[in-house]
């Protein structure tokens, strides 16, 4: 299954599963990224990492290593 890193900038998708370590999952969840939420890929930092995604109108910075654990399917 694809993770959010497979999205192009500006593309949105639906989150299907969180698969990072537990405490990171908790953190990501408290920021509003949970299953069935629509997530949009917004920015990649000039040096290639981290990225910023948009959920519910707020942008959140994540490192690629954390973003890998967020699985998505086409919305």
């Amino acid at each position: 299954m694809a993770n959010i890193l497979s999205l192009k900038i500006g593309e949105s998708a639906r989150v299907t599963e969180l698969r990072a370590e537990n405490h990171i999952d908790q953190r990501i969840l408290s920021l509003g990224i949970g299953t069935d939420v629509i997530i949009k890929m917004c920015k990649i930092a000039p040096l290639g990492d981290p990225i910023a995604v948009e959920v519910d109108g707020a942008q959140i910075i994540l490192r690629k290593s954390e973003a890998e654990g967020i699985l998505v399917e086409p919305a």
Partner: protein
Amino acid sequence: MAPKSYCVNPRPKEFWSSLHNPAAMEVAVSPAPKRTLRIALIGNPNTGKTTIFNNLTGLRQRTGNYPGVTVSRKAGTMKLGDTTAELLDLPGTYSLSAHSPDERVVIDVLNGRFEEIGKPDLILFVADATNLRRNLFLASQVATLKIPMVLILNQWDSVARSGQQIDLNLLKGRLAVPVIPTVGTKGKGTEEIKKAVIQLMEEPKLLPEIKWPESMKLAIDHLKATLPCVGEELLSESETHRLLFDTHSAEVQRLKVSPEEAEREVVKAREFIRKDGMNPLVAEAMLHYRHIDGLIGGIVLKDAQLAYGATESIDRLLLHRGWGLAAFVAMMYVVFQAVYSWAGPVMDVIEAGKIWAQNLIGPALEGTPMLKSLVLDGVIEGVGAFLIFLPQILILFAFISLLEDSGYMARAAFIMDKLFSWCGLNGKSFVPLLSSYACAIPGIMATRTIEDPKARLTTVFVAPFMSCSARLPVYILCIGAFIEPVYGPWWAGFTLFLMHFVGVVVAVPTAWFVTRFILKTRSQPFIMELPKYRAPRMRDVGYRMWQAGWEFVQKAGTIIFVITIIIWASLYFPRSEAQEIEIQATFVADKVADGAGSEEAILAQLENEDSDLAREFGLTLAGAQINQSYMGRIGKAVQPIFEPAGFDWRISISVLASYPAREVIISTLGIIYSLGGDVDEEDGHLRAALKNSRWQEGERAGTPIYTVPVVIGLMVFFALCSQCGATTSIIIKEAGIKWAVASFLYMTILAWIGAVFCYQVGTYLF
């Protein structure tokens, strides 16, 4: 006793046993005096809690457009009709499972762990109205504490601006608690908040609480039954949730049973949830979100179309692959160029004021040479030399404030994270480090937002390397005297820019070494909200400048003033008539030997105060006296340590005197040269005195002391050295004495090596 903010602090045993102590019981039962209402501001980071706190209390706590400005609790009083209430501003948090020390503060306050403040009676929940769902997640968690709540929908202006529409009446109906739209920056809604609080005091209302499914209830009841808290009190509902849902919950420390036993019971309890087909570690969040979706379903009539509209366009440039980095460097360059070049005219005015004061007061003190010297050479010279740098401080803080309030600071963290991750730090370390460019003390405090204790310690350790504003005067003095006249203003600004990177160049490998070999930190996640750009409020910028400027001036009146007097005294004494006669005898003998005339003729010339010879003698006398003063002797004794860096005794002594606070060097040099008669009365510039300063003896006699390699070495020394008593004490407080000692020694040794390196290599090359 306040708990250490970064670890959970269980109530001390005495507290719990006091519940069973008859004497203590009596106190509890006797009619308690009606105490003031305690109100806490809770909410996600960067929603405007502090802005509203300031509106309600009239205080001026710092605000800024990035998550994590407030890192500790701050109390204030607010008027409520004819009574008052105590209002508590708190750091922001996204959930009640605390990850970092600043979030821990929120949990401790909500659970009444700080004895001096106790549990809040009422919560002002500040939500960002443009992002209700996420904000209400925390509100839903907080609701399990059963404390009456007012829901504040701040940033109401942004709702309309982004094209969003919220059905306020529907929301009010569903939530039961007062719901108040506000615009913190404009003060809109402040009175409504107060009214709601008064109403709520009469008739407490709670936010509708989450309804747990059966399996969850079983799990919670299991924990409540099997895990007694210290003392006989049962775990509270909210504390039980933390134990059940969080990995490594700090609540374990409050239990009577061992952590292992607790863990066993927690695993058993989670089994109930697992059997119900849910992952116990994410189930809580899922259920809270489901609860919230039920509450706010249909509330948002129109989604935000332009939430990040303008922000996106700006970011397309500022976070662009190529342009983004260039813009970052250019912006920093402009800041330092401006700090260097815009201050000139104001500096001249302050300088003129200093000379004016000296000329005004001088004649009045003619009869008492010692007092005259104390006031003119000591106080006015020492304090004045320091105050001249006020304009630079103001300009620097204007820029820092603009960068923070506009939202660029968070972008800088986004850009730099990659570089930081390489040495074990992350973008969250960036904000504390950047704050340290203003001053390391708030910078080190800001490390409280960092979750991992090891990453936090590393950041504390490298923060003092960032070039704080107290170093600015040294750089400006050196650059103004020795770089600009030779290489021109362009290089002057550029040198200042470069000096601000010296610390980083050292800090990055240092952090790498510490994380790799000493703390062995695992690489850290970096998860942070990216705020929208906002036009900074000029009032906030002005206030920040005023505050920094006022602090600077206060410093001149306190620490600088006191040290100035001490330094003046140790440079003035001992002094006696016999000593003066001896110096005169040597002077005259030297002149006779040079064939300048007979002894009588020379003595006669010395009588005439306006003669060239008398003036020359005046200088010789001052020089000899300062050489023989206490400070002069100490300087000569320590000078060999700094000899490899090309420092003479005067620089050496100034460097030593600057250990309590690095700005002292300016005052010390000012006094040394003023007492030594080197400061030209007409021009009064310390700069000119430094330029004219020459070696008096040894093989270098007659050559200038301040060559370019010496000056660069001196600046590098100040860039790297740990010369700030206040920073050392904040490191002791935040990281412990071991780290403070390590930091002091490491920085001092590095500074010496840096200065020696610059001097030796520089002299070899030039």
